[in-house]
């Protein structure tokens, strides 16, 4: 078990270093001279040279890279060319907004997706199954930003149930929650659709296994089979599913934030892209991707504890 945990942690550090590498080459992927591109058409030669020196673009690539990795691992992700603030601080400021949206979206998705998936696997082939699967198909097929727009149209303009903006300047907790509800529901809906589909297929696989057939043959009541035998065994793939959908939901959250004009990491990255503030883009992308790796590694370790079979293989 300890060995397994250590392995996961080692793998995580390798992945994080790899991600730093990808992020490093992201800025170098800008065609031509990144420094003059970032500063725009009216930049003076001195300012371009200064930025070049700051980015280290005047030194050999391997030297730039080593410096970048060293600084990134100590939390120094450069400075924003627009505000002059350290990029990492800007990222930290928007994390609570993103965390609130992602966490509430995932909670909604798990609460809706897992029971629906289990139900449609248990009632495999019935109308209930068909109905849930059609709903899930719609959920994964409609663009999340479009669902957001439609919800704004219906639930904020027609029926004034929720505010159209996904954030408010008010410090009041309940106002904030009220503003968060619609974006979280929209994000939760699309993630729930994935979770329901994957839970269903995980559950179906377990229900088709021999030990379930033996239990049935022995006359174990169906309820007991589903909840005590099958669900327990299906929980591990479902946990894995939640880990994978987390990464996916962070991508969707960018679009949800844009539709609801809600601050957050996604909005920050977008704003930085349009301002050509690439060090901020790098920092945002790095932090978002690190969050994914962190969550997935913790989930891996959790199901190593839950299911001894995982850590052995």
């Amino acid at each position, binding site marked *: 078990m300890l060995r397994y945990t250590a392995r996961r942690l080692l793998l995580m550090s390798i*992945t994080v270093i790899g991600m730093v590498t990808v992020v490093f080459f*992201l800025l170098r992927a800008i065609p031509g001279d990144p420094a003059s591109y970032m500063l725009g058409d009216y930049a003076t030669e001195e300012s371009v040279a200064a930025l070049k020196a700051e980015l280290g673009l005047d030194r050999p690539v391997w030297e730039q890279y080593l410096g970048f990795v060293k600084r990134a691992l100590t939390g120094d992700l450069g400075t924003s060319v627009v505000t002059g603030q350290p990029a990492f601080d800007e990222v930290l400021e928007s994390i609570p907004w993103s965390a609130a949206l992602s966490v509430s979206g995932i909670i909604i998705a798990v609460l809706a997706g897992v029971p629906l998936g289990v139900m449609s696997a248990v009632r495999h082939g019935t109308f209930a199954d068909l109905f849930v699967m059609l709903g899930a198909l719609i959920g994964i097929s*409609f663009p999340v930003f479009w669902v957001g727009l439609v919800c704004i149209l219906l639930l904020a303009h027609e029926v004034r149930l929720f505010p159209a903006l996904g954030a408010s300047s008010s410090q009041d907790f309940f106002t904030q929650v009220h503003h968060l509800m619609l974006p979280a529901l929209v994000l939760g809906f699309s993630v729930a659709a994935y979770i329901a589909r994957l839970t269903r297929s995980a559950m179906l696989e377990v229900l088709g296994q021999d030990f379930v057939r033996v239990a049935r043959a022995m006359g174990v009541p169906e309820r007991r089979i589903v909840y005590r035998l099958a669900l327990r065994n299906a929980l591990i793939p479902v946990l894995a599913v939640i880990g994978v959908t987390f990464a*996916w939901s962070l991508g969707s959250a960018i679009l949800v934030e844009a539709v609801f004009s809600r601050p957050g990491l996604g909005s920050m990255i977008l704003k930085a892209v349009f301002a050509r503030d690439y060090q901020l883009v790098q920092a945002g992308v790095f932090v978002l*991707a690190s969050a994914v790796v962190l969550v997935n590694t913790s989930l891996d370790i959790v199901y190593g504890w839950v299911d001894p079979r995982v850590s052995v293989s």
Partner: protein
Amino acid sequence: MSAEVLPDTTADTVPRARIVRRILGRYLRHPGLSLGLFVLVLLSFVAIAAPWLAPHGPTEADLMNTLAHPSGEYLLGTDQYGRDILSRLIWGARISLEVALAVVALSLTFGSAIGAIAGYAGGWVERIMMVCNDILLAFPGFLLALALVAARGSSLENVILAVSIAYTPRVAAVMRSVVITIRPRPFIEASRAIGMSSSRVLLRHVLPNALPPVIVVTTVSAATAILAEAGLSFLGLGVQPPTATWGNIISDGQGFITSNPLISLSAGLCIAVTVIALNLLGDGLRDTLDPQMRRYTGERML
């Protein structure tokens, strides 16, 4: 080669045409698969015939009729520049299908090559290739595509390239997990024993046997690619206006969502219909090609 050695037992008993018909029948009887295929064929026709089908040019502005409601002249109304929505939707189908097709071609080629080589080679080669693959997989796909487009600039080619780079590792991961289950099978060992070269075994025996799950995955990745392109265009980072793409149309209509909801709604429906069709096709292929493959696809694709 194998046909000369082994007697073709099927040829004597059942005529070939009937076998083909039986196999085709199995696919076409699957309601989701045939519906998805039908919609996609229809959409491809619309995309190819866009210049003849569209009643107006996609960027033709009628400044006397801006934000018009549906009428005989403009069946779905016009946008803020007086451009016909229906015509823009028809032309938008081209971009979406082009992106889907190109991403499928690129990610299928590179993804299956990377996955097959890694899975077949095993050992250190596999380990290193898969660590690199896992690093790319760790990024949310849409975020990686967005960052790449942001760096390389917004154009159709860059969108295709960025989305392909983001989704190739997913195909590669699936390919590898299939190949490592094929590698220990006796017929591979036999091919090696009779002295076939590695590349020949890989191309003639491993790849064809590993393809079905990968085809399912690429169908799903076509759907994801369309959604990603629409998302990027919606954010203003994809194909640049005035080119008609479904994502652009939604973003154009966003400001007029209360007065002219049809602009955004219709484009969103177009995206959804296409993506539903691709997902139905993918689900159908997964059910009919090989029920065993459920394990590989699905969760890896997000």
